[in-house]
């Protein structure tokens, strides 16, 4: 019925909406329509299409003629009257944009650049507002985080179910074994297995039994408890007699087994890092109990805690390791933003954050919509004040290819030096970008090599941009570029691009030194397999882009940028992992 369910949820609290639920609301534009409107310009350029010709309205011809004449006589620039503005800082090897208009324009008209504190679209301010309870906008980071949380939850659920299945099976087997061991009743025929009931007299059999009784380490907790090598086990066991040894280990295992497998992220974070931790924790609790002090600590085994100490869920519990701290002198005062930890209440709305810059682990859990601590809640009552206080800490970054394409290729961006604030010319920018593209940056003066990495990379970027693809960096998928059909907000990337310089010119095989140089640039088959598998995993298609490297020319350093770029050729090869077994119909 409702095409935008989230709006309904948000408005559910408003009494006005509840009062008149029957009133048909004017249907707003759909999400796709909104996106199409917001991202209607595929490039930061203005176009002047001729008006449509309407046969039933002869006057439209006049309109067309007027528009055409206007373009012919006094052509308007396709650039915006005010160019977008960016600054280039060679020290940071970065082109950044500060002005809000330029940021929005560059993002919405062709998806150039990224926010320095965001995954792609600059959304730090929105998230910050939301975090402080002043905004409600749902950013892409929120969606991603939500999806990850869900995925993690599913994994824990699966782990729990697997665990349960194993336990059930073990129980079943234990019952079966028990029935075998029990003395045969006269009515039942004796099974042949009963001739030799399991005995643990010999050392080896005992050891086998011990190993069998340890559950397979399906959870991190169990993994941590396992000995590092059989040698550990042996050294532990060599001290006492065979029978005792077996018993001892059996004891150990039975001691561990009641601890439930962690089935939520909270519990995983609460797990001890080593056996040593467990010992400390248990001791502290015992000490606390003996002193009868009203101290409560979070424990790594909630089952144990609930047995020994009654946890009041509403009471704040502080997790401090390893020294116990009374409630009053907690970190809450120490750093002002520490938070309540509720280990037992694994509530979906609570999230836990751990900061590990200090030797002790400080953890907080907070409800997303709530302010960080109840004490501060009063301060944040009125959201308007906060909004004024928040200053946008984020700036917008352009990669060097993007910046060069926007300024040199399209001419819609004016790049200024961050140091002087003066505009940089195209050839100057070309040199500076080439210098900055490598790490560590090469010192000027720099002779232009034909296989300069910036030149190659820019060529490929320009190539795909001019074919209409939205090109973005692909380091997260271990490729050079990702190609989006219309943009990242519309669909996932279709193709992943890897740039390979190709030295087919005879010049490159003329001398042994050059041959060795070219051989050093070759990549291995295993590298290609690795990249291809990664790309196939994320359901994209790999494109190998070969850039033909021309032979070097003498005056190349002083050549115009157009002339330099014109000497290169680009070939594309689409690569796909194909298995005869899987691809058979």
């Amino acid at each position, binding site marked *: 019925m409702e095409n935008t369910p989230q709006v309904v949820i948000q408005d559910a609290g408003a009494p006005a909406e509840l009062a008149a639920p029957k009133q048909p609301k004017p249907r707003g534009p759909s999400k796709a329509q909104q996106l199409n409107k917001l991202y209607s310009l595929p490039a930061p350029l203005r176009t002047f299409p001729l008006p449509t010709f309407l046969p039933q309205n002869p006057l439209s011809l006049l309109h067309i003629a007027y528009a055409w004449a206007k373009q012919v006589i006094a052509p308007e620039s396709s650039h915006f009257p005010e160019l977008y503005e960016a600054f280039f800082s060679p020290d940071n090897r970065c082109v950044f944009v500060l002005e809000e208009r330029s940021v929005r324009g560059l993002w919405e008209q062709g998806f150039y650049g990224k926010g320095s504190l965001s995954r792609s679209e600059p959304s730090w301010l929105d998230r910050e507002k939301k975090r402080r309870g002043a905004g409600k906008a749902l950013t892409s980071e929120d969606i991603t985080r939500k999806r990850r949380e869900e995925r993690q939850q599913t994994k824990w659920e699966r782990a729990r179910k697997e665990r349960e299945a194993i336990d059930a099976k073990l129980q079943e087997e234990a019952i079966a074994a028990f029935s075998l061991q029990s003395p045969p009743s006269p009515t039942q025929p004796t099974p042949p297995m009963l001739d030799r009931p399991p005995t643990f007299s010999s050392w080896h059999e005992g050891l086998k039994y011990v190993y069998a009784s340890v559950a397979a380490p399906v959870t991190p907790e169990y993994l941590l408890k396992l000995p590092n090598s059989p040698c550990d086990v042996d050294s532990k066991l060599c001290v006492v007699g065979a029978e005792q040894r077996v018993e001892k280990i059996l004891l150990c295992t039975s001691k561990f087994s009641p601890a439930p497998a962690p089935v939520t992220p909270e519990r995983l974070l609460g797990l001890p890092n080593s056996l040593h931790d467990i010992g400390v924790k248990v001791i502290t609790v015992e000490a606390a109990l003996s002193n009868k002090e009203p101290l409560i600590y979070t424990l790594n085994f909630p089952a144990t805690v609930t047995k020994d100490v009654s946890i009041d869920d509403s009471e704040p519990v502080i997790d401090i390791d390893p020294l116990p701290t009374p409630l009053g002198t907690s970190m809450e005062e120490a750093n002002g933003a520490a938070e309540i930890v509720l280990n037992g209440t694994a509530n979906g709305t609570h999230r836990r954050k751990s900061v590990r810059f200090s030797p002790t682990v400080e953890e907080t859990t907070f409800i997303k919509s709530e302010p960080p601590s109840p004490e501060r809640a009063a301060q944040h009552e009125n959201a308007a004040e906060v909004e004024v206080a928040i200053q946008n800490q984020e700036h917008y970054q352009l990669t060097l290819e993007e910046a060069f394409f926007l300024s040199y290729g399209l001419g819609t961006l004016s790049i200024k030096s961050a140091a002087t604030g003066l505009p940089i010319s195209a050839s100057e920018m070309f040199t500076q970008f080439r210098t900055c593209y490598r790490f560590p940056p090469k010192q000027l003066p720099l002779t232009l090599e034909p296989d300069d990495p910036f030149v190659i990379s820019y060529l490929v970027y320009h190539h795909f941009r001019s074919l209409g693809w939205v090109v973005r960096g692909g*380091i*997260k*998928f*271990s490729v050079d570029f990702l190609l989006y059909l219309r943009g990242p907000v519309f669909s996932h990337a279709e193709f992943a691009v890897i740039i390979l310089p190709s030295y087919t010119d005879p010049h490159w095989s003329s001398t042994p030194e050059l041959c060795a140089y070219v051989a050093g640039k070759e990549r291995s088959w*295993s*590298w290609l397999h*690795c*990249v291809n*598998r990664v790309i196939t*995993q994320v359901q994209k298609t790999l494109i190998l882009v070969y850039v033909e490297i021309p032979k070097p020319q003498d005056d190349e350093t002083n050549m115009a940028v157009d002339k330099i770029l014109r000497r290169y050729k680009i070939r594309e090869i689409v690569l796909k992992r194909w298995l005869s077994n899987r691809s058979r119909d």
Partner: protein
Amino acid sequence: MAKADIEDEHRDVGSDTITEPVSISLIAGRYLLFDINVVTYLRRTHNICGVLIGGIPQIPQQNVFLGLPLELLPEEARLLVEKRVAYIVDDTAWHKPKFSTLSGEERRRYLDSLREAGLKSKRAADEGAKKRQAHGLAKEAATRRAKGALKPDSDEKDIPDSAKEVSDSLFGDERPQSPTPSTISVSNKPHAITPTTTYPPLSLPDIPTEEAKPPVPSSYPLFTHLHSRGYFTTPGLRFGCDYTAYPGDPLRFHSHFLATGYGWEEEIPMLDIVGGGRLGTGVKKGFLIGGAESESSTEGDNVRTFCIEWGGM
């Protein structure tokens, strides 16, 4: 002859009698093993797996399951040579002059050994046939008895029919109906044998004391490091790495690491680390990189390894 026979018997029984060093055939740049006993011995004793590359004669139209010969990686061959477990024999260079000039007593012995092997195979086949026949007859007798118990009146008619049926089913598939199906007359002719190796007649070249070691890629230190820690390794091309490392026999375990070797001073592209980490985490393995430290004060193995995991998956 007799000695060779005994040796043969022993080799069939088990791989315990493998005497080190074993020979690795170098053919067209590949290090190959042709003897199944050597293959199992190396796998069991020295954690060397290799890759089976030969087709299986009975099921030739697939390449999922492969048989002998076993190809060893250059690293594996080098390791075996360095540990003096094996030595390399250039098969072409050794075989050609020896085999073409085979004559007189040697030649006769070689032909005899072939004939002997053929007879042995023949005998085994005949025994199998006999066993099947006996089994079929016993089964037939059992059914006849059961039928006889059920219908004692009509046994006169049934016996010849069913007997004929059984005889058809017994021999129809395996050999054509011949007028004289006598095993004795056929048994004189041995099976034709194609030996997998020509070594028994051509006594092997002397074990060279100091020989050229197989050339290995730069990831060899990592390979020896993993091997010394008891890991089994297989070639890692499938996963885009140098080796996949298994904690035990690959038949029992999944691999734990995708290992890639680098030189100590070699620059590792950032994209490679991202790709390897993503792939390793995606297939629930660790992406392991390692290399030999060039200047190290410690004795022996100076390989250091690092494991990389992709966090966002």
